[in-house]
């Protein structure tokens, strides 16, 4: 997906008369026409934009294509500067002050970049490359219109990367149609720059600058090589054939592919630190974590369902079986015991109430009680008043409902009254709860009222 959205970069060599572009084996060379003021004409600019757009084949919704561009050394100033060691964030500010002091133009009027050469505790040696800001901005506007995001460096640095040993002391000579560019290198960094016409005194200049092998490139390399024969160790840079191919584009491709650092020329209209840039690569771990957490949040409820559903189903089935077993065993027992308790007749309570209500001298002949609560009593008392009192007490106890004296007959000698009484105890809930008073120890004597 990333590769699809971020298409491969374009490697370009920008000259005064033409620009060359290479991308994934395909190439393009577009001539540039300049007006009297030295700027690219509008017609030439539109034509270049159209051809570059066709070359890129970029869709409107795709992001801008990265373009790594090499500039010729004409108009470029190279300076070695020694500045006090500063914090990394402050080095740029220190360099701006130094450029302000050493260059004829202010830093805001330049496109400039630097590379650190040496760094110790007290000072820092830096190579600064600068060119007029208009030069870079003209190319930047053209490339942006074509849908590119350009980065600028020096073509000579890219050519040096093509040599067998970039760190060696050597001279690079680009023999183009516009003239000769001579750049001497040592330790991978440019030491001196010369720009000559094709017919200029190249032999003397090479003799002055050359400290080692001279690497030639460009369309007029053969001619220059012949002129330098016997004066220096001349070799051609190996550049593949094809449209848009040059030593600079090949060198840029090699630098980017190897991930090597290169000197970027930047305009400083706005401080770089104010630019808001989002790099997927830089934030990749955090983005992956966030994506993982979101996915987890989304899938967790479903995972829970898939994981625990069989477990819950088994538990519920076991629970239902236990419930059925419990109901089958305990419910009948509960109903049976509750019924047994509720249907237990209160015989002892009834006898207690009778005993408490009986007046002294009661002679009990027979007493009958049954489960339905019917009581039948046959006894004798001294007189009818006692029978009445007995019945009154039974009524007052609240335990019985409407006791009935079925028969009351005085004995022939008038000493006693025989009577037969019937009653019915009230249903549970309607009769009072009895508070039985237990007799004291040692007084367990038979009730004199009972036979």
């Amino acid at each position, binding site marked *: 997906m990333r590769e699809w959205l971020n298409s491969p970069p374009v490697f370009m060599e920008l000259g005064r008369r033409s620009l060359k572009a290479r991308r994934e084996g395909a190439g393009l060379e577009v001539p540039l026409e300049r007006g009297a003021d030295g700027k690219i004409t509008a017609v030439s600019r539109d034509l270049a934009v159209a051809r570059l757009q066709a070359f890129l084949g970029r869709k409107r919704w795709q992001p801008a294509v990265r373009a790594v561009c090499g500039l010729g050394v004409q108009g470029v100033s190279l300076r070695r500067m020694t500045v006090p060691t500063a914090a990394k964030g402050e080095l740029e500010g220190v360099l701006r002050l130094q450029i302000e002091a050493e260059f004829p133009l202010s830093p805001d009027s330049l496109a400039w970049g630097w590379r650190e050469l040496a760094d110790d505790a007290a000072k820092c040696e830096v190579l600064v490359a600068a060119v007029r800001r208009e030069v870079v901005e003209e190319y930047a506007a053209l490339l942006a219109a074509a849908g590119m995001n350009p980065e600028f460096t020096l073509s000579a640095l890219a050519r040096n990367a093509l040599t067998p040993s970039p760190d060696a002391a050597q001279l690079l000579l680009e023999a183009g149609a516009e003239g000769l560019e001579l750049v001497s290198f040592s330790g991978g960094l440019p030491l001196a720059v010369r720009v000559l016409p094709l017919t200029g005194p190249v032999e003397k200049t090479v003799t002055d600058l050359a400290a080692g092998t001279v690497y030639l490139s460009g369309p007029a390399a053969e001619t220059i090589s012949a002129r330098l024969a016997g004066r220096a160790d001349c070799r051609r840079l190996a550049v593949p054939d094809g449209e848009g191919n040059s030593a600079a584009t090949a060198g840029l491709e090699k630098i980017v592919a190897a991930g090597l650092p290169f000197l970027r020329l930047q305009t400083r209209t706005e401080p770089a630190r104010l630019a808001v840039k989002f790099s997927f690569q830089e934030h990749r771990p955090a983005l992956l974590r966030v994506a993982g957490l979101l996915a987890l949040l989304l899938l967790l409820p479903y995972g829970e369902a898939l994981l625990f559903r069989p477990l*819950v189903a088994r538990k519920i089935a076991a629970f239902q079986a236990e419930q059925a077993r419990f109901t089958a065993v305990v419910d*009948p027992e509960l109903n049976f015991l509750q019924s047994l308790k509720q249907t237990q007749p209160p015989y*002892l309570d009834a*006898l207690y109430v009778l005993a408490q209500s009986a007046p002294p001298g009661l002679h009990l002949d027979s007493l009958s*009680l049954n489960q339905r609560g019917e009581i039948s009593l046959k006894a004798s008392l001294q007189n009818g008043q006692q029978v009445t009192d007995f019945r009154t007490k039974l009524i007052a106890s609240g335990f019985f409902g409407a006791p009935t004296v079925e028969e009351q007959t005085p004995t022939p000698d008038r000493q006693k009254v025989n009577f037969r009484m019937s009653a019915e105890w009230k249903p549970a809930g309607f009769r009072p709860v009895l508070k039985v008073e237990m007799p004291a120890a040692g007084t367990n004597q038979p009730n004199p009222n009972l036979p």
Partner: protein
Amino acid sequence: MPNLTPSERRTIRYATVGLAIYLTLFAGWQACRWLGRQRADYLRLVAQGRQLKVAVQPFADRAAVVKKLMDEFHFDPAALARNSVVADASAAIQKAAQGGGLQPGPIRESAGRAANKELATIQFEGTGQVAAVMGFLQRLPTLGFPVLVDSVQISGDPMRPGQMKLNLTIKVLDFEQWKTPEASHA
């Protein structure tokens, strides 16, 4: 395989991408529906479990009541042997009477009425003092058998003053008939 022009290749590439997107969306939709069904089933099961939890909460109370009643009556209905419960109950009644100072008299057993969930009816006659009679009546429900005193008759003994004659009709209940659902709701 014939050589394809760039246009044909692009068409095939677009078709492949479109087909892949369609299949991915279709499979994703089906997977989402399946996962949704699984989750709905799971939530239904969880709700059912919660209902069961609420439903079984009274079970502990019911078990405690059963235990209390069994302790009160001194027997476990499920442990009673239907064939021997009448004989065992009769023996226990006589033993309790004798142990309490009551002199057992004639004892008659007859088959109980199934409609009343009875196994048998025992007619018991005995003689003893008031305390013995009262104690016997008190101990009867806790003998360890499902017995219910149907009627009590107490009368004086004219031959032995201070003694009472006790005539009891005792029903022995049939627990097996309570196990059927209709009996439980009787």
